[in-house]
Every structure is written in C-alpha cells, then in structure tokens.
C-alpha cells in the first residue's frame, strides 16, 4: 500500500467516500487547469464540503508528509492549480455557500468555491456588487481569485481582489484554521491577509472569504471606438488618462482579436477596424456625463473613425461579450494558442506593440492582442498549430520574448494570471536572487515543510532551515485526527 493509498483510506473514513476521488479516469479530468498544456495527474483528489473538512484534509497531508495543491474552478491561466503527481488536489468546488450578504456593512461572506459573478448576483438586489471582474467571472471562484489576486477589466478604477478582500479564514499549511482580517478594517499586527492574497496557494487555502461590496454606480456609459491602428487607440488611451479621467475600464483589441471575437460571438464591432477601444465610465450621473463628453472628444481627436455608445444594457453586454470571450474565441481562428499576460507602463504601449509585431514577423507566428489598455496589462495571444512540427516551440519563443519586452520597459511578467508553474522560470529575470530569497521567508513562516503547492512561483525553493516532519510508524496515525 502506498502512502497515497493509505491517505485515501484515512480521508474516506474521515470525510466520507463521496469526498475522495481515486478513479484513474476521474483523476485525469483534473490533470490541468485553464492552462491546458501543463498536465499532471493528481495522486488523489479531495472535495471537502466545509472549512473543517478542508483543514482535516490538510492535516492528514501534513501527517503523511504529502504535498497538496488547491484548486477552485480550474480556470487559472498560469498552471497555478497544476496538481502534484504524488500529492493531493484539494478542490473547493463543493464549498460554495454564500454565507452572508451584509449590505449595511458593505460586505459579503462566501465560501471559496462560490463563483465570482454569483457574489454580484447575490448583492445586486440590495444595490451592491462585487467589483473585481476577471473575464472568467462567470465561472472562476472567489477562492481562486484570492489565490491569484485576480484583476479584471474594471481594476483600472476599482483595484484588484486584494483591494476587495477584507478578511479570510485560512487553513494554514500546518492544517490550522486562522482568521486573517475581518469585517472591520485594519486588524492589528502584520497584514498577513494582504500577503496571503495573491500567494497562489503557497501559504494555505482560504476556506471563507469576506469581500467588500461596492455600491452600484448611478450611471454607466460605455463607448466603443474604432481606430485604423493600435497606435491611434493607444494615443487615445494616453490622452484620456492625461486628461485626469479615471475610466472604470479602457480595453483594447487589435484586428486579429476582433476577427476571433466576431467569429465566436458576433459582437458586431465596426468593420475594418485595426483596433477598437471599449471605454467605460461609471459613477454619479453628472460626473459621468461631463467626463463622457471629454472621452468622446479625445477618441475623435485621436482618429476614431466610428464611435458607438451603448444605448442600453443589452448593447453594453454585447460590447463586452466580444472582449470577455476573446481568449477562448481565438480557438476559432487558431488550433492552439498561448495566452500571455504581461504589464508595461501605459505610456510605452505603442512602442511595445510595434516591438511585439516585429517579434511576431521575425518568427512567422501570429499574435492577436487583447489588453487592459488603461493599466498597460497586455494579453497577447500567440497563435500556433501544435500539429505543425516546430510551431509550438516558435510560439513559446515569441511568448518569452514578449515577457522580456515587459521587463525591459519596466513592467511585470504577470498582471493578473499569476506566476504559477508557467512563469516561475521568468521570475529571476524580474527579481534578483535576494528578492526571491526574501519573498520566500514568508513562505518559510507559513509552510516550513514546503507542502503547499510546491514548485509554483519560485524557480528554486528555499530551504527553511527546519527539517520537515516525517511520518513515522510510532507517531500518531492520521486516522486519529478524525
């Protein structure tokens, strides 16, 4: 009997058979998250129903010295939830209760498996919503958002998950349940919650999350502007920001991305556009009206050849549909593709786009660009056909070159998808060995044994100066935990 077999028995008897998956084919369905070219079949999958079960699962892993990886909806794009072959995949998709919606406190308390958009659905009747809106908001889980510090189109104005999570109950990598932050702000002591959000499952698993709810804006105006070139669209973006306007979102798509979105969802963007901008303003009516006039003029002044203003929520939804489905839509125009996620200073946008174009031509690899132009977050989609020998490698080179550009221009290797498995190798290009060593002090504080999502974020794990506990025959058996 292997360690995992024993652990499976322990967990089955402790949590119930329905929580543990060990069937070979079922395990394989968990072999990847949204970044499907990394595949590892997990040793075991556990689906806890609540925080207690989650903590017991982690404790059993600790006792057996088995690594564990947390997974929400499995939509991550950096391989952050890539399983460990000799480890346990802890899936939170059965922990999906919206525990409380408290509009008077502008908070909601949810379990980690709750879908991002469902928080907004629950809060809307009270006049509130949950602001962070990753493009996958209809399916990504709050637990995954916390792990990745997910952004979204509207974080230009509203910030990221970290700015909207005020508390979390966390299972530490030792299996303890700890409360970080809460419903009130500024808990005393170190801001461990701030450090936890975005730690990609390496500091523990959130089992209950308190999020900030945002008052629905009085007015929302959405503009679709078509330009002949990405240069013009980039210039319009800069002009809007320079004018002191903080739009809720400024999104850009280039011709190839538009083509894909059109094929997928028939979003009806203006024909012949080399780039479209979606600019959204929200807030008090009078503010929005004043700024909307400004934005419209700036788009026209920078060469927009067609401007469409969403007349109703349905048209607004159609504008966004093209943008939000763009990643998967690229499947319509290319058999395979890499979704890249890098950040540059907004002002470098036109220059970097030209550089990307050069790289793309030099390698003979097409690149579709979709991005959060307002905050310089690029999502180049590198297209290739895995069936053609050599293409995948060339695409990977282009993808890596784009990351190098981001670093060269003083940006980041990831704006919202996380480092995960995919980008650990790029970390030393952005940070020094000392930087990475220092970050890992935090990890050593939380997880000296290195069992929580090992192999992610950091290319070289730091030894924590403690010998990880090993399970010995004469130590208490994991079964006694239950």
């Amino acid at each position, binding site marked *: 009997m292997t360690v995992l077999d024993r652990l499976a028995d322990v967990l089955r008897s402790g949590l119930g058979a329905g929580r543990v*998956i060990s*069937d*070979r*084919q*079922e395990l*394989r*369905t*968990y*072999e*990847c*998250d*949204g970044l*499907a*070219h*990394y*595949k*590892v*079949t997990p040793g075991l999958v556990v*689906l806890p129903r609540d925080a207690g079960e989650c903590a017991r699962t982690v404790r059993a892993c600790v006792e057996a010295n088995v690594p564990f990886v947390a997974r929400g*909806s*499995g*939509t991550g794009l950096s391989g952050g939830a*890539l399983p460990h*072959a000799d480890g346990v995949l802890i*899936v939170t*998709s*059965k922990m*999906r209760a919206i525990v409380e919606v408290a509009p008077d406190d502008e908070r909601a308390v949810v379990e980690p*498996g709750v*879908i991002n958009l469902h928080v907004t*659905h629950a809060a809307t009747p009270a006049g509130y919503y949950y602001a962070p809106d990753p493009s*996958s908001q*209809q*399916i*990504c889980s709050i637990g995954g958002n916390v792990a990745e510090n997910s952004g979204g189109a509207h974080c230009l104005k509203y910030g990221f998950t970290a700015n909207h999570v005020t508390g979390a109950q966390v299972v530490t990598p030792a299996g303890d349940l700890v409360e970080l932050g809460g419903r009130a702000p500024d808990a005393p002591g170190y801001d461990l919650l701030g450090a936890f959000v975005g730690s990609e499952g390496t500091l523990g698993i959130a089992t209950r999350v308190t999020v900030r709810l945002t008052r629905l804006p009085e007015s929302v105006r959405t503009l679709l502007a078509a330009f002949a070139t990405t240069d013009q669209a980039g210039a319009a973006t800069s002009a809007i920001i320079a004018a002191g306007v903080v739009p809720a979102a400024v999104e850009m798509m280039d011709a190839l991305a538009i083509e894909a979105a059109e*094929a*997928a*969802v028939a979003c009806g963007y203006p024909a012949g556009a080399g780039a479209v901008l979606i600019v959204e303003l929200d807030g008090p009516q009078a503010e929005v009206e004043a700024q909307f006039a400004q934005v419209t003029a700036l788009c026209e002044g920078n060469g927009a050849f067609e401007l469409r203003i969403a007349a109703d929520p349905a048209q607004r939804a159609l504008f966004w549909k093209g943008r939000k*489905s763009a*990643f*998967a*839509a690229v*499947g*319509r125009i290319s*058999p395979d*593709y890499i979704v890249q996620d890098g950040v540059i200073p907004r002002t470098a946008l036109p220059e970097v786009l030209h550089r990307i174009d050069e790289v793309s031509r030099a390698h003979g690899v097409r690149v579709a660009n979709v991005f959060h132009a307002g905050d310089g977050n690029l999502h180049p989609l590198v297209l290739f056909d895995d069936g053609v020998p050599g293409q*995948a*490698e060339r695409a*990977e080179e282009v993808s890596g070159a784009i990351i190098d550009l981001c670093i060269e221009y003083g940006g980041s290797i990831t704006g919202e998808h996380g480092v995960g*498995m995919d980008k650990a*190798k790029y970390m030393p290009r952005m940070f020094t060995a000392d930087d990475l060593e220092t970050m890992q002090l935090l990890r050593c504080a939380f997880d000296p044994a290195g069992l929580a999502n090992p192999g992610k974020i950091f290319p070289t794990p730091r030894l924590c100066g403690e010998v990880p506990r090993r399970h010995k025959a004469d130590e208490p058996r994991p079964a006694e935990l239950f």
Partner: protein
Amino acid sequence: MVDAPRDVLGPVAGEPAFDDHRPPRRDLVSDCVHCGFCLTTCPTYVLWGEEADSPRGRIHLMKQGLDGEPMTDSMVRHVDACLGCMACVTACPSGVRYDSLIEDTRAQVERRHPRKGRDRALREAIFALFPYPRRLRLLRGPLRAYQISGLQRLVARSGLLARLAPTLATLDSLAPRLRRVPRPPGRVPARGPRRAVVGMLTGCVQDAFFPDVNAATIRVLAAEGCDVVIPPGQGCCGALSVHNGREEQARGFARALIDRFERAGVDFVVVNAAGCGSSMKEYAELLRDDPYAERAAAFAAKVRDLSELLAGLGPAARRHPLPLTVAYHDACHLAHAQGVRAQPRALLAGIPGLEVREIADPEICCGSAGVWNILNPGPAAELGDRKASNVLATGASLLVTANPGCLMQVAAAVRRQGGAIALAHTAQVLDASIRGLPPSALLTPAG
C-alpha cells in the same frame, strides 16, 4: 510544452473505449481549450461540483477514450449523467460541438457497454413505451398502466411504473387539461388569406398527455394564415432515442417520419415540442451516411419551432388583451439546441396586457431532459426544486414554456414546494389571446 511536467500514469490494459463506427470526433474534442466557461451552466456540475460531471470533464473523458482508455463503469456513469441540455454549447466561446460529441459517445456506450439488470430493464421499458404515442395514451390515469396488455409485464418488472408514479401523479394534477380532445383532422384550412402550408408534428408525449396544446397549435397556425396538414399515423421523431444513444432506433423513426411528411407536400414542418424540433433539425447529421441522406437534409431544412415560424410570419390575427403576468421558461432544446429565445418572448410580449418576467438562472435545465428524470429521479428532483424556486420567485401567475417534459417536471416541483402556478404552452397563451378568452381560461394552477 517544453518544460512541462509529464503525466506519470502509464497506459492501462483493456480495450479502448470506442470502436471505429462514429467515435466522438477527435478534431471536435481538441476544439475545447479547457477554459471552463461551460461549468456553471451544466446542471450536474451545479449539483455535484465535480469535474467529470461537467462538459469540460466529459470531453476530457472522451479524449481519454480516444487515447486508448477503456470504457469503464465510471466513464459510462459520467456520460449517462449528462442531461443533454446543451447549455454548455450556448456558453462555449470556442464553439465546441458538444452536442455532436455526446451523441456519438452515447451511441458507442449503448453499443459497447453491457448494462446490468435493473438499469437495462428500465431502459428497455422506457424505449418500448415512450416513443409510441398509442401505448403512451394508454397510460393516462396512473392505474390504467396495469391494464396494458403486453407492456404490463415489461413495465412492472423494470420498476418503471414506480419511477413514473410522480410524473403520472403530476399529470393527474393537470387533470382539467386531460379531458378527451378529439383527434385532429388531417387538414385544417387557413383562416383568411393563406400565407403558408405547414405540416404539424403531433408528437408522443404532447399527443398523449397534452392534446390541448396540439389543438391550440393548430388553431393558432390557422388563425395566422397557415394551412395545417396533420399527416396521420405519425410516429416518434426519434429524439428520445438519439439523445440516449439508441442510434438505430432513432434512424428508423426518422426515416418513417420523413416518408410521412414528404407525401404531405408542405412548406414547413412545425413542431411545438422543443426536444422533437431540435432532433428533427439534425436529421441530416443522423442520416448522413444513409440512403436517406439527401431527403433528410431537405426535410431538416423545413423544420421550424412553432414560435420561430410565427415570429417569422408576423402576426395576422388580432390579439385580444390578456392581463396576465407570465414567467417564460426556456426549454433547453429550444434555447440551447435551437437558439430560439427571442421569438417566444416576442410573441408573448405582443399580447396586450401581458407581462413577461424572466426566471433567474434561465440557462440551467429544470431536470426533465427527456427521460433523464425517470432514469435519475433524485438529482432531477433537486434540479426541479431549484427551478421551481426561481419560477415562484418571479411572482408570475402563469408559467409558459414550449416543451411538455418541462411542464410536467416544473409542475411536480412546484407542487412539492407547496406552491401554485398555472402552466401553459406558448401556443395556448396565443390561442387564448386570439380567441379573446379570459385569463381564467389559463389559470388553473397545478398542484
């Protein structure tokens, strides 16, 4: 890719899951980019939250099968658990043809996976009963089932009757609708100038349990200027069979139906049951390598859902006010499989005084799904309860939908919750408005 860690599981002994006769197509499988946008629209994922019971997971299982994994009980269980609601097809930004994939997979399962005792008997009984309108008609009133000669033993042994009991009880609660309706004539002429000649499918369940709906459909079509041809001796369209992998049975039904309607010489074939319409629109695919292939394509091109046809024609008959608040429920095989969402809403909204309310989570199946609720009574009841709560939350007094299965399923769930809402097919609401009936004609609550 380059630095990717590799799978550590080795290959396993055993025959690969699929043979060469129409396995799920590998190119369609590889269209899935694993984005997960389908997950929250999938009823079984909503219920259980497990990957293998999601469209993404099922496609992954198909891929495993294509890569040589055997057809295990576990694989079959996950394929069987799919309701075939096709909400995932609507949700998929990559355009994955899950409908085609699951149909091909199911056919392989039916041919290659020996089913065991009870499950097998239950399925035999279902497919000996449901696709046959005349046998079904005998079932009206729960106790009459025992008197059906021939079927009696099969049905009793399979345990089908016990599974059917809640459905039959629901039907009983719809008793006012179950009065005897005269068999429709072979042809009903258009009122006023003729705008089209349409053939009408009478269906199995619709014909047996909701003859009123067929009658209303005929009246509405005639009022809107259609000559309505009702070919006699219509059999089943094959929807239940094709959705459950019984490919051969389905082809037989399809050929017979094509024969019947070809003789009628109609412009359109009108269907008022969503499940039937969606499978008839796909006859070309079902019979793609059959001598009937060409005729099947021509037939499929003429198939229209009732609401689709009426919305296309535009209103001719006068609508009388019908002061009612209705909740419109999207039948999966209308909304997801046929993409018909706007037309029924537009038709309803065209009735003066009638307010249409939307039901929360409209994309999630009510759990009826053909015979899925008979094969999976527990989960079906859970889905029904969710739907019933959302329906009741609209505060509407009438639930309108375009599928007999949904009507029965939601009615049973509403009754379980102690709620009350009247039920009607879109055709009945239009009929009432055109005939100037009072709202009370539609407001007999179920339960």
